[in-house]
Every structure is written in structure tokens, then in C-alpha cells.
């Protein structure tokens, strides 16, 4: 029993000793470890890190009670190189555990691998400026400090623009960004915000963004998802943008986040990183009346597959590369209340093929949404656009009702009802656009001042088929039906679409292979001439053609054929008129023409079948010689030439031979024949002046018209001449005028005669009897009375009425008209008196002007002439 007890106590002591030695050793080891901990950490951490692919170097490790401080830790990896100024690890020995880990001034540079062959890459260093990373009780907090940084160090650019993007001023140092990121573990969800101002290429953007990063396990690997929304307000009028962006799997952007190791990863090529899906909704608020919203979805592709340049004007150009698969952009927006849907998709199976489909569809669309008060009306619109890299197609059906538009007072239309159909497509292989269009109109009115068109009366349609390439616009067919018929084929127009400065006026004359148009003459006459110009040229209201017109292209010249009858004020003037003109368009050869009529009646003129040949050259129309038999005589014209570029009209050798006026006026009490020789007529707007004279032979004497001019297009058509006459038989003249009876010969002149609108405006008349002419000089009592009436009255004494006729010695009268005032003078001046008629030697009657300074108004003169006329008729 004793031995058993001794054995037992011996075992216990042995155990106590072993335990004591163990604890002592442990204490000594722990103490040694604690003392050696900085050294261990300093030596072991680089070894452990190296096994993970990192190179870590610690400058100093310090310890104090419950705190280990690691100073200046340099870490480098194939894509990361940086330094943490200080890591503080606070722990508690009882209960044992970490209380806080703090990283101060972590400063890393992310260095990408070779970026060659990539669309997208970091070509600069990314400076990750974080103030502090704290892990407290399992929660990680990352704090940034507000900073003013040279963010030009960070730029993302397409490699084509590398040299441009490397400019130091893309993002100026004036940019200010501050932000905050909070990261929560163990789920590792981070959220933060970013705000500031970016000064980019002198345009300032105010930026405000909130975001969240969620780290999740997905199919056995860690996925970093980003959701963010923000608003950018550039300092540009009316432009702001909002965006929501969700990036799933950030490893695509930052490959060091990827857990997978691929061959490419080892080559430091981020283009072969894991797939990414991005969805975004974008709202552009370009202006108050333009809202754009849409969806963007990229699936199973890499962000590096897209390169793009945002343009401030609100467009975004997207280029798809071959490895972009099964993506699409589907957007719908309303432009001026007009719904537009666009879908851009790239199926992927066809390599780099992509296609875009746009549709505009609306019923009873109010066109006032487009141009406010300038444009109004309703329309049904269906337009489809289908675009691929090599071709596009457009089809459009537009039906408008009561469409009205006004550019200004001179250009407008209203109440238009019309249908427009258009089919166009672009063929990349032929590099041209072909189209087919059809336009129908049935109601409305159009004004292109001075022309007005009532479309209700002239419903019609136009059909066109054609092509357009960079050098030529070709109409294969133009067909018009309605108020007239037109068919044109192969009309080509040279143009240069690459030259934006080329103006329409610089375009050359189109080449037309086939052209034929015809219609009734009444319609174009009414629309083109009568209605617009009759307010100024009243005769157009009285003139009315009735016939047909035909225009046809024939051997390089445009032939016009007009067959018509002409009436004036309801009376037939020209019957069976045929006007045949050719104008040389594609040739320099002058074209013959012809004007002929069966009968021309313009009382008293009447001409039977007449033919006048014409010649039309470029910019010139001429005809002659012309010989027209008129009133037993002839009018001949050697040449008439109208040169319209120079506004020049020339008449060459106009001759009147033996034209007997009595043929025109059978009641004419005198025999009058006219001959003339006007060598040349020259046009000097608005006057046509003639050299030469017209000679009128009557009553045995001659009347010469010289210095003749006419102003046919003046507001009041007028003509003028100087007139000289001599040897006119007074007896015949006075009898014809029922003025009484005077014998003798009359001579004199009219200077500066101007007739305006058929009425005398001014003249200076001097007339007297020819004192050398043989024969008796007698004047009837009636003639004396009439001369007296013209002079203002003076009664003949009773004894003067005893004889019906008196001898006279001389008659001399001057008369002038100016400003509707006549002055009348006697040419014979004796004893301070003015004699209109001087009596004979033995007997006779003197007619004396007692009021030589008096003026006679036009109205008074008319009254006096009426009295004379009345007397003569009695």
C-alpha cells in the first residue's frame, strides 16, 4: 500500500515538472517570439507574399503593447506597385483578437501590361489616392481625402488617338474631385459618392455621382458588381445628361480582381479578361422639347470591344468590333412629339455585321410641333429605315391633310391634301442611291409670288425614279399628270456631293435624253401670265388664247409648238396661229422657227395668211427679212434681233411702202399713204429709238416724222417725235376736219411731240400758210369763227357776216401744250398786236389774239374743240 502511494506521488511530481518546463518553455518561446515578432514579420511576410506572386518589402516593424506597426511597406505585383506608409494592427491579448487594422497613405500605381492590340487600355499610371483604410470589428472603411490632383495622369483613350490623348491638357489641373467610399464586410458591399468639377478641353462639367459595389460569389468565383447613377451638367446651353450604369463583373476592367489565371493574364493582357455584362439607361436632356431615352445592353462581351467618342452635341458613335456578339441598342424617343424607335443590333454570327432599324410612325400627327406657327396640318406618317454597314433602305408613306406653311409673304401654301410615297435604298457595292417616289395632290393652294396655283382645280401627280451617286443625279423617269402631261427620261445632273460649298446655281444644265410635255394653252396662260401680271398690264385681261402647247426635246434642241386662236375683248384677233420655235440646248446650231397665221384682224388692219420665219440662237432671237402686204402697200423689215442677255433689241431697216390709210379707214375723208425708212432701232430701257423717218403723203403735201421713239413697257406707254410738214392743201384739210373752208398751202412743224397712252402730253406747234404757194387764199366765215373759238371767243360783227368767204393775206398760228396748259399765239405781229389771221389787202377778217399771255386749260381746249365739232356737224 505504501509502495503504491510512493509510486503515485512520484508520477505526479514528474508530471508537474514536465508541465512546469512546458509552460516555462512556452513563456520563454512566447517572450522570444514577442521580442522577435518584428523580425519574424519582416522576414516571413515577403516569403509568404512571394509564394502568392507579390514582392513585399518592409522597412521597419515596431511593436508596443497591443499594437504592431509596420512602416513603409513596398508591394509590387505584375500590375500593381505601391507603398503603404504605415499599417497599424491593434490587438487585444485577452480576449485575444484584432481590434483594428489601419492602412495609412496607401499609394499604389497600377501598371498595365502591354496595351498593344487593344482598343482600350491604361496608358498612364493610375494613382489611387486613399487617405485611410480601416478595418474595425470586421467593417472596412476606406476614406479618400479631398484633393486637387493632376488628373491628366488618368486618361482612357482609343489607341488611334493616342498622340492626341496624351496631351497634358485633356483634363486640366483646375479639375476638383472629392469622394468617399465605404466598404462593408463580410459581404463586401461598398458604396460611395463622387462629386466635383472637371475642366476638360476648356469645357467644365459639374459631376455628381453615387455608386455601390457589391462583391458576390458567382459560379464559384468572386464577382464585383458596380451600380452607379450620376448627373453631368456641362456648362453648355441646354445640355445635361443623366445616366444609370450597372457594370457586372468589374474584373473585366481591373483584371487583378479576377481569381482566374489564364495564359493571357500571365502575359498581363487585360483584353482576355473575364466576360462582362453592362446595362445602362441614358437620358439626354438636350433641350426642353427634345427628350431622349433608351436602353443599352451588351451581353457576353468585353468592354474592350467597344470604343467610342462622346460628342457634346448629344450624339454617340459606336463602333462594333468583330468579337462583339449578340448586342443591341434599343431606343425610343420623341422628336417634336413624333415617336421614333431605333434598334441597333449585331447578331454576331455574321462577323462584323450589324444592322439598325428605325421607324417613325404616327397617325394624325400635328405638324405644328415641328415649326410652330409656320407649319400646320395633320399627317399620317409611316417611315422605316433599315441600315447595314453596306446598304440602307428607306420607305416612307406620308399622307397630309390641310397642310399649311408660310416661309414669308411671298412663299406659302395652305390646305394641301397630298400623298407622298418614297422608296430609296443605298447599295454599297454600286455606291449609289436609287429611289422611287410618287407625289399626289388634290386640294390646296400654293403661292410663289407673283404666281398663285389653285391645286383644287389642278389636281395631279408626279412620279419619279432615279439614282444618285457622288458625281451624278439621274432621273430615270419623271412623269407628271394633271393640269398638263409631262414625260421625261434619263435626266442627269452633274453634281459633287463632296463639295459642300457647291451651290445649286453652280450646277450645270441637266442633260435630258427624252422630254415631252403638252397641255392646253389656256391654263399656263392664265396661271403664268394673266393672273400675275394683269394688275399692271391690263390688256392681259382682254387677251385670251385658245389652243394647245407642246414642248419636245429633239436633236439637242427644245422645240415648242403652240397652236392657238387669239381673241381680244371677245373679238377674234388671230385665227389659226401656229408658233413653232426651237431653242438650242445641247447644240450650238441655231434653230429655225416659224410664226404663221391664217387671218389677223385688228381693225382697221387685216392680214391674210402670213408666215414669218424666225431663227433662235443661244441668247438671241432674230427674224427677217419680213414682208407683209398691208393696205395696198407693204411693210418690210430687214431684221429684228432680240439679244436677251444684253437686253438689246435691234430693228434693221423698217420700211413702209405705199401703205394707204384709206384702206384701213374707208370713211377717212383724206387720201393718206405712208412710207417710211427706219434704218435702225436701238433699245435703251425703257425707250426704243429709231433712226430715219416716216413720211406721210396727204393732200399733195408731206408730213415727216423724225426722231421717233417709243416706250412700250413704261407704266404709261408713250411715243414721241419731231414732225415737219409742208405743202398740205388747206382746203382738203379744213373740209375733212369740218373746220370750215380755207384755201392755200399749209407748212409748219411740231417739235417735241409726246403722246402718252394715246393722248398728247406736250408739243410745240407752229403752222402758217405758204405765202409763195400759188392760188387763191380764202377763208370761210365758219373757219374764221372756229379759229376765233380756239382763241377764246371773239364774236364777228354783223356786217362781217355779210359774206361767206373772205380773202386772207396770211395765217400764222403757234400752239404749245405743257402740263395740260395750252398757249395760243398768232405769228403775225403788227402794231403791238398778234394776228392769227391777217385780212387781205382790200377786204377780209383779222383774227387778233387779245390775250397773248393767256393760257388755256386742257379742259377749256376740249370744250372749244367740242364746240367746233358740233358746229361742223350741224
Amino acid at each position, binding site marked *: 500500500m505504501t509502495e503504491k502511494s510512493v509510486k503515485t506521488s512520484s508520477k505526479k511530481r514528474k508530471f508537474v515538472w514536465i508541465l512546469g518546463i512546458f509552460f516555462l518553455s512556452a513563456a520563454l518561446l512566447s517572450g522570444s517570439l514577442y521580442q522577435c515578432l518584428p523580425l519574424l514579420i519582416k522576414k516571413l511576410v515577403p516569403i509568404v507574399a512571394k509564394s502568392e506572386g507579390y514582392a513585399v518589402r518592409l522597412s521597419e516593424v515596431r511593436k508596443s503593447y497591443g499594437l504592431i506597426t509596420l512602416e513603409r511597406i513596398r508591394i509590387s505585383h505584375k500590375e500593381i506597385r505601391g507603398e503603404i506608409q504605415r499599417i497599424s494592427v491593434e490587438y487585444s491579448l485577452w480576449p485575444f483578437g484584432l481590434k483594428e487594422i489601419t492602412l495609412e497613405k496607401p499609394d499604389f500605381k497600377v501598371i498595365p501590361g502591354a496595351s498593344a492590340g487593344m482598343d482600350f487600355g491604361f496608358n498612364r499610371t493610375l494613382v489611387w489616392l486613399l487617405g485611410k483604410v480601416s478595418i474595425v470589428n470586421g467593417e472596412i472603411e476606406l476614406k479618400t481625402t479631398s484633393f486637387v490632383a493632376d488628373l491628366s495622369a488618368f486618361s482612357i483613350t482609343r489607341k488611334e488617338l493616342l498622340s492626341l490623348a496624351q496631351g497634358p491638357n485633356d483634363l486640366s489641373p483646375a479639375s476638383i474631385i472629392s469622394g468617399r467610399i465605404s466598404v462593408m464586410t463580410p459581404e463586401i458591399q461598398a458604396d460611395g459618392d463622387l462629386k466635383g468639377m472637371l475642366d476638360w478641353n476648356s469645357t467644365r462639367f459639374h459631376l455628381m455621382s453615387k455608386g455601390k459595389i457589391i462583391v458576390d460569389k458567382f459560379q464559384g468565383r468572386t464577382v464585383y458588381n458596380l451600380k452607379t447613377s450620376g448627373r453631368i451638367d456641362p456648362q453648355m446651353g441646354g445640355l445635361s445628361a443623366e445616366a444609370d450604369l450597372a457594370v457586372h463583373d468589374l474584373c473585366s476592367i481591373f483584371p487583378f480582381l479576377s481569381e482566374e489565371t489564364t495564359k493571357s493574364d500571365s502575359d498581363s493582357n487585360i483584353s482576355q479578361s473575364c466576360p462582362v455584362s453592362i446595362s445602362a439607361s441614358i437620358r439626354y436632356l438636350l433641350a426642353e422639347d427634345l427628350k431622349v431615352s433608351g436602353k443599352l445592353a451588351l451581353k457576353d462581351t468585353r468592354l474592350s470591344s467597344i470604343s467610342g467618342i462622346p460628342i457634346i452635341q448629344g450624339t454617340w458613335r459606336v463602333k462594333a468590333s468583330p468579337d462583339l456578339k449578340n448586342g443591341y441598342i434599343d431606343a425610343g424617343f420623341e422628336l417634336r412629339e413624333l415617336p421614333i424607335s431605333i434598334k441597333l443590333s449585331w447578331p454576331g454570327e455574321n462577323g462584323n455585321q450589324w444592322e439598325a432599324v428605325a421607324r417613325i410612325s404616327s397617325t394624325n400627327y400635328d405638324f405644328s410641333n415641328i415649326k410652330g406657327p409656320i407649319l400646320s396640318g395633320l399627317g399620317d406618317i409611316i417611315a422605316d429605315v433599315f441600315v447595314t454597314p453596306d446598304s440602307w433602305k428607306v420607305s416612307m408613306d406620308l399622307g397630309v391633310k390641310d397642310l399649311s406653311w408660310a416661309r414669308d409673304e411671298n412663299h406659302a*401654301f395652305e390646305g394641301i391634301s397630298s400623298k407622298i410615297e418614297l422608296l430609296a435604298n443605298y447599295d454599297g457595292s454600286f455606291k449609289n442611291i436609287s429611289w422611287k417616289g410618287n407625289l399626289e395632290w388634290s386640294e390646296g393652294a400654293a403661292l410663289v409670288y407673283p404666281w398663285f396655283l389653285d391645286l383644287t382645280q389642278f389636281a395631279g401627280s408626279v412620279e419619279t425614279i432615279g439614282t444618285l451617286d457622288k458625281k451624278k443625279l439621274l432621273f430615270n423617269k419623271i412623269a407628271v399628270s394633271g393640269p398638263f402631261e409631262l414625260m421625261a427620261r434619263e435626266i442627269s445632273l452633274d453634281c459633287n456631293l463632296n463639295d459642300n460649298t457647291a451651290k445649286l446655281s453652280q450646277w450645270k444644265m441637266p442633260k435630258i435624253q427624252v422630254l415631252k410635255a403638252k397641255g392646253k394653252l389656256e391654263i399656263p396662260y392664265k396661271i403664268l401670265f394673266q393672273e400675275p401680271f394683269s394688275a399692271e398690264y391690263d390688256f392681259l385681261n382682254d387677251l385670251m388664247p385658245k389652243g394647245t402647247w407642246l414642248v419636245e426635246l429633239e436633236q439637242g434642241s427644245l422645240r415648242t409648238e403652240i397652236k392657238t386662236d387669239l381673241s381680244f375683248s371677245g373679238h377674234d384677233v388671230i385665227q389659226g396661229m401656229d408658233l413653232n420655235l426651237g431653242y438650242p440646248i445641247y447644240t450650238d446650231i441655231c434653230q429655225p422657227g416659224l410664226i404663221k397665221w391664217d387671218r389677223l384682224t385688228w381693225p382697221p388692219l387685216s392680214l391674210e395668211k402670213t408666215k414669218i420665219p424666225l431663227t433662235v440662237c443661244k441668247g438671241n432671237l432674230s427674224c427677217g427679212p419680213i414682208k407683209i402686204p398691208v393696205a395696198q402697200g407693204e411693210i418690210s423689215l430687214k431684221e429684228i434681233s432680240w439679244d436677251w442677255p444684253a437686253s438689246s433689241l435691234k430693228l434693221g431697216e423698217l420700211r413702209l411702202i405705199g401703205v394707204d390709210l384709206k384702206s384701213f379707214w374707208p370713211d377717212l375723208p383724206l387720201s393718206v399713204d405712208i412710207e417710211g425708212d427706219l434704218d435702225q432701232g436701238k433699245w435703251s430701257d425703257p425707250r426704243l429709238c429709231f433712226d430715219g423717218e416716216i413720211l406721210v403723203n396727204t393732200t399733195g403735201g408731206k408730213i415727216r416724222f423724225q426722231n421717233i421713239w417709243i416706250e412700250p413697257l413704261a407704266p404709261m406707254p408713250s411715243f414721241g417725235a419731231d414732225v415737219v410738214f409742208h405743202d398740205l392743201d388747206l382746203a382738203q384739210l379744213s373740209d375733212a376736219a369740218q373746220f370750215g373752208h380755207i384755201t392755200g398751202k399749209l407748212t409748219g412743224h411740231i417739235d417735241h411731240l409726246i403722246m402718252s397712252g394715246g393722248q398728247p402730253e406736250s408739243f410745240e406747234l407752229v403752222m402758217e400758210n405758204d405765202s409763195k404757194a400759188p392760188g387763191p387764199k380764202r377763208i370761210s366765215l365758219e373757219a374764221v369763227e372756229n379759229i376765233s373759238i380756239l382763241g377764246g371767243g371773239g364774236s364777228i360783227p354783223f356786217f362781217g357776216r355779210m359774206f361767206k368767204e373772205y380773202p386772207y393775206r396770211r395765217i400764222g398760228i403757234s400752239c404749245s401744250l405743257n402740263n395740260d396748259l395750252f398757249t395760243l399765239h398768232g405769228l403775225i405781229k403788227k402794231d403791238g398786236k398778234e394776228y392769227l389771221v391777217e385780212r387781205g389787202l382790200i377786204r377780209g377778217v383779222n383774227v387778233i389774239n387779245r390775250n397773248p399771255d393767256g393760257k388755256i386749260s386742257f379742259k377749256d381746249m376740249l*370744250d372749244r*374743240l367740242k364746240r367746233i365739232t358740233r358746229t361742223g356737224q350741224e
Partner: protein
Amino acid sequence: MPKINLKLTFMFSIIIFTACVTVNIYFPAAEVRQAAEEIAKDVRGQEPSQDPADTGAGEPQSFLNLIGTAYAQQELAISNATIRQIKARMKARYTQLAPFLKQGVLGESAKGLLVIRDTSSINLKARAEVKRQVSAENSDRMALYSAVSKALKISGSELARVQEIFAREWQKTAPKGTWIEPGSGKWEQR
């Protein structure tokens, strides 16, 4: 001393000579105003004018009658064949223009021409017709001003003054509702 006197005399002569340069400008404003008043009133029917039939002299029996039958116009301070016939045309046209003047579609400008003020109350066809009538009227008015100036021997450079004087008369005789421009750019409705 004589040299000084000679110099002074010479200088004095130059001063007198240059000081005596006189520019005589004569603009017959009274005559133009009288003509404008008479024409405006006659065109707008505010003064009785003679019936053309009274002076038509019937059918021409004597060649003296070839002068014509359309002289039946009231005697004016200034007149001639051009003025009379233009005036007759304007008078005939006034019946078409008067409704548009009253509606405020047309206005009488300070330059003696008609202007289109507001065509919103008329349709496109009426607008085309009004514009044509206004164009014809203004063409006639300018021809009238030129004819009056020529008759009064007023140079072409003074045509604007003639227009201004006529403008006042057109505005005075315009019907109620017409827009008038008494001063340049200032419009008011009668």
C-alpha cells in the same frame, strides 16, 4: 504802305468773293402739296369729279376728236396726259384696295407707298390678289411721283420729298381702320 494796302484789298476781295457764294434751292412744296391733295381726294372719291360722259364728245366725227375722249378729269394744279391716266387707273383700283385698307391688311407708309401689314385674316388667294394690286398701285404711284416731279421741274434727287408730301395726303384720305405711318417706323391705325 501801298503794298500793305494792296495785300489787304486782295485778301478782303477773296473773303468777300468766297462769302458771297450762294446756293439757291427751290423746291415747290406748295405746288406739290396742292397736287397731292387734289390727286388723293380725286382718287379716293372725296371730291366730285366730272363725269367722263360729259366730255366724251360722242362718236368721233372729225379728226380733231382723235385726241381722245378720256380727258374728263378735274383740272389740277399740275397735270398732263400721264398724270391723268395714271390717276384714272388708281381710281379704278381703289375700289378693290379700300376693303383691305379698312381691314388693316394694308398700310400707308411714310414713303407714299402701300405696304402689306397683316395678311393673317385673308386666305392665300386673296393674299396673292392683294399683293398684285399693291404692286401695281405702287408702280403707278412711283410713276405718278416721277411725272409730277418732271412737270414741276423737280430733280430726281428730290423725289423722296415728293413722296413724303404725297404720303401725308394718302394718310389723310385713308379710310378708317387703315394703318398709317406718320413718322418713320411708327405705325398707328386710323
